[in-house]
């Protein structure tokens, strides 16, 4: 047992109460409120964080299940002074309105581009093997776990597409 979770390079002790979700741990105990709670039931993606390199819905996990894990939240992806390429692209393309789903969208997109790079197929992929071509339909499919009630989908797609292209060259 490590008894701590590493969040954006800082170690935080596990909570005493085993009922605390990873999401509530991040928001309440660590004090990083960039990760949002939209449903608490794994239905909206607002709570998406990256754990050991993979995106998960942090509301669906208990903090104690992540003993020793490494978590990256939106605060670890970039800051107002040093935003990531995706964060900049979201601002440029107006990939949000109210902003509440946005950290989840950006965390999901960050991990999603890695999934494509690693050849993990989706429902929109032509084949289950080999290299995956980034297409609008790939991005839409892979981002469909992140709801945006403001309806910024078209702009979110444009932002992700821009960054995916930059990465490709």
């Amino acid at each position, binding site marked *: 047992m490590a008894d701590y979770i590493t969040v954006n390079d800082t170690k935080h002790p596990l909570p005493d109460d085993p009922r605390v979700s990873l999401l509530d741990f991040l928001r309440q105990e660590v004090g990083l*409120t960039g990760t949002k709670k939209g*449903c608490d*039931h794994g*239905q909206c993606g607002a709570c998406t964080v990256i754990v050991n390199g993979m995106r998960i819905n942090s509301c669906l996990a208990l903090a104690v299940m992540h003993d020793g894990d490494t978590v990256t939240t939106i605060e670890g992806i970039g800051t107002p002074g040093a935003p990531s390429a995706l964060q900049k692209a979201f601002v440029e393309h107006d990939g949000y309105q109210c902003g509440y789903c946005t950290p989840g969208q950006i965390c999901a997109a960050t991990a999603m581009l890695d999934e494509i790079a690693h050849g993990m197929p989706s429902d929109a992929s032509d084949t289950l093997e080999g290299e995956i071509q980034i297409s609008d339909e790939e991005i839409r499919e892979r981002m469909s776990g992140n709801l945006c009630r403001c309806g910024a989908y078209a702009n979110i797609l444009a932002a992700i597409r821009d960054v995916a292209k930059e990465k490709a060259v």
Partner: protein
Amino acid sequence: MTAHFKQDGPVESNRLDGMKQGVIGKALPRVEGLAKVTGTAPYAAEYQAANMAEGVLVTATITRGTVSSIDTQSVLAMPGVLAVIQDSRMTTRAAQGTAGQAPQQEPQTVSYWGQPIALVVAETFEQARDAAKQLTITYDAEEGAPLDPQAVESEAKEGQTVNQGDLAHAMAEAAHSVDVTIDTEGHASAAMEPHAAIAQWEGDKLTLYASLQMLNYNIAELADALGIEEEDVRLRAPYVGGGFGSKLGISEEAVAAAIAAKQLDRPVRVVMSRQQVFQCIMRRSETHQRLRLACDDDGRLTGFGHDALVSNLPGEAFAEPVLQSSHFLYGGDNRSLSLNVARIHRMTAGSVRAPGEAVGMPALEVAMDQLAEEAGIDPVELRLRNIPERNPEEDLPFSSHKLAECLRQGAEAFGWDSGPRTPRQHKEGEWWIGTGMASAARVHNVSEAKVRVSLIADGTALVRTDMTDIGTGTYTILAQIVGEMLGLPVDKVMVELGDTQNPRGPGSGGSWGAASIGSAAFMACHALRKTLAERVGTSEEELSLKDGIANSGPSLVELLDGKELSELGHYEPGDIADDYTASGFGAFFAQVRVNRFTGEARVDRMLGAFGFGRVLNAKTARSQCLGGITWSIGAALTESLMFDPNDGHLVNCDLAEYHMPVHRDIGEVEVLMVEERDPVASPIQAKGIGELGMCGGAAAIANAIYNACGARLHHFPMTPDRILAALPD
């Protein structure tokens, strides 16, 4: 000083167009953008307070009756539990938009399943949630509450009935006519941020961080509920995670948090669960509508009938205003319109994005598509032929009217084929492909607004109001209006929103925010310009401000000479609404595919063309339109509240079962903004745009489904089961 302006007539001066800064209308990124994308913008539940306790609402599991007892002892011994609050001042419904007074209180009286009846407070959220589940409650249930809107005697909504000429006669004599009944299911706003509040008292002074759209009304609603003075309340909501009507009025968690915090003498946070947001905030009423359209050989309407049945709880004044745009969108001398309300015990019905037109327009536009088919006229052409010169019921002129341009420009950009429209002409594999279109209309509103604009000695500007930005772009458009008027780039204009210590704005709702608060800011800036002009020794008209320099001479900093200059802008709508009909107009075009075997419909592409006065920011305005189109797709295909016929409770009360569109539901979307200046709409010539994008869009999809596969449905949403059942052999 106050710069007050009451708009009793058109404002033709178009002052904004004469300015030099060149930021108005530009597609500038949101000024608060970096805060949002980095997760540093704080929403209601995210403020820190020392010693904060956590509250969880407990809701009723009966439809109607009274709470006879709550066994508080059953949970008070649980770890961390601090109190079970059952105060008669707690509210049981959210206030309707612009109510300005407390909604229904006395939580021991239950009038719908899911109504809040108590609040459990504990040291931690986990403790409170557990205790709320364990609480033993006994009820005295009153059986037989009416639940089916079509099974009860309904009442006519006042002021909605129109009878002009003789519609029955017009229908009988018409060259072509349609008489259809169309149903729409209920909708939820489902803003992504759940309702949340943090209440903190200092003596008799309450500060409440909340997720609300209209602080200017909410402050009075909260004070009234608590029985205290408005002066003792401060509301803060600088960031609101979406509203769409659900946060117009003070909601249950806010009042409960305030009561608990006072009783426990420590800050209390209450966040609704997603299920609670669904079940005890607001639903858009289901509707049952009848459309009767009669036209002559040329397709000119001679008769227009629109009757609607909606529902709400007993005692609620709100009735989904289904007919709002039907009153003026198309001509037809013989008119009959009526709106009826059924009193049933489902949760409260209230405003959900574009109340009225969101469901009235899709029904009307499906009927128009059928009329076009009957008459053998292209649907775009049919609409063009029926645009009235003046409001056909009140004989008023329109403030401006861009429907024809939107129809024409939209059709061209979409590549609309005006040839014959027989269904089932295009097939790709197992998919039928088709196109459809519809008009868009949404009434334009404005509301009283105040804002303080200050020029700081360092040559920057500060804008302060309690107005909110719920994703609509308020921060940015205010920076642009003030920047344009005072000759400053937007990064020199600081905007402070969502704090009732600042002057009262109009609140976000009814698409009136930007035009109203923007006009107040415009007035303040106009007054500031006068003072600056005097200092330069010229007139306001001759004063040219750009990049902090006046008339290529002195800088703002020099003119201010170390002292701040400040004006309160105060905009008030005047009698002008009695003289004009003001509305946003537009047109939707959609291409869909329908699966021959599964009945699944997918929107391949959709285009919306909209005319809504001056565009204040081309980026954020377009986003509002995109959002509306996204909602149109949800309303057309998937969104539907489902109620248990036995106890009236909302069954699909979460984001897994209430199907709002996701990324993959949205194909190619294009937005055309048909620019205009509407001098009647507001002194900045802008109209609202937050809702127009979903006022009719669902019909473009429905009509495209018909064109694709021949299934003419009269029931929204058009789910695969309904489409399959309607497919001709």
